[in-house]
């Protein structure tokens, strides 16, 4: 993880989230969830627009100033054109933006899809519809994660995404101490202390962001 100053806005406690979703309904809802959680939101309808906003499309983008820095990207998985997964890859390939946490949202809880995203460096995989508690937890984690890293314990997120831990067969009941009562609990990279003790549940509870939808 890069030095916190690069990720969090200096002097400001407000997180700036870039939300990417082709569904107008979902954009409106995620925007509201984020605003209620005191985040600044930029909502765009495609991966292409997201890259344009970040300035990764070759243009200058809209991030000329520190105050517009993006602290978190939340993207839908299934989008026409560039999928959320492809967007994730592009962001992780960029030296300027690879440290920005990327969360994938999807209405489908397909294990291979989840694994692929986590392996590519996604922080979390949220099953839609996204709840306020998901957003609050994300926000807390990012804010806490920055403090943890300042405190010295720095762990690269990818460390938890290796395949040395067998997939959990019951992904719907996470039992890490940090898991919230809801089934969608999943430790974030900032939950380092406990996650290092319970590496298997960490892996499985990232998968535990499954809810029986269809």
């Amino acid at each position, binding site marked *: 993880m890069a030095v916190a100053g690069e990720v969090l806005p200096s002097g400001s406690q407000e997180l700036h989230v870039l939300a990417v979703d082709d569904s107008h309904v*979902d954009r409106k809802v995620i925007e509201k969830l984020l605003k209620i959680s005191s985040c600044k939101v930029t909502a765009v309808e495609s991966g292409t627009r997201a890259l344009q906003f970040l300035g990764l499309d070759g243009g200058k983008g809209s991030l000329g100033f520190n105050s517009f820095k993006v602290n978190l990207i939340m993207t839908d998985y299934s989008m026409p054109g560039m999928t959320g997964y492809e967007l994730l890859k592009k962001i992780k390939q960029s030296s300027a933006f690879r440290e920005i946490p990327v969360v994938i949202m999807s209405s489908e809880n397909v294990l291979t899809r989840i694994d692929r995203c986590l392996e590519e460096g996604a922080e979390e995989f949220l099953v839609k519809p996204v709840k306020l508690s998901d957003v609050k937890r994300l926000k807390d984690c990012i804010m806490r994660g920055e403090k943890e890293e300042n405190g010295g314990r720095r762990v690269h997120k990818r460390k938890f995404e290796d395949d040395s831990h067998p997939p959990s067969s019951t992904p719907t009941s996470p039992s890490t101490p940090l898991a919230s009562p809801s089934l969608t609990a999943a430790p974030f990279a900032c939950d380092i202390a406990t996650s290092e003790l319970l590496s298997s549940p960490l892996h499985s509870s990232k998968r535990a962001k499954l809810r029986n939808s269809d």
Partner: protein
Amino acid sequence: MDVINQLQRQFIDYSTSLHREGFVDDQFTQLQKLQDESSPDFVVEVASLFFEDCEKLINNMARALEQQQGVDFKQVDASVHQLKGSSSSIGAMRVKNVCIAFRSFCEAQNREGCSRCLQQVTHEYSLVKNKLQTLFRLEQQILAAGGSIPVVE
């Protein structure tokens, strides 16, 4: 105060029936909770977007299913998938459930089944649209009478 109480009672009863009959699920309640002074029309706005989506997507599905020279089931499925997503996000449960069945028929490339689902989803859409518009009207009446909208869990 009597008028307000009466309207509020009506609202609660209506809201409860919508849930009981499966027109909306908990996600709808969650959206109602997000509404606040800074966005007093939030739910109505989301509903409008949802209705727009329904119209557009149902049209897409109808056109695709009409193709005489062979139905592009992937295209139909793509629209159904989007509709399922929207309906799930607003909590329109019955519409969502038809979409789930619809997708199976798309996967099976079953034209008959798809056509039936199209009819069903069109029907459910018009039902939930009416129901929600009635609910929103009740809300407006309460507010106009000077009352506040009760929270129904």
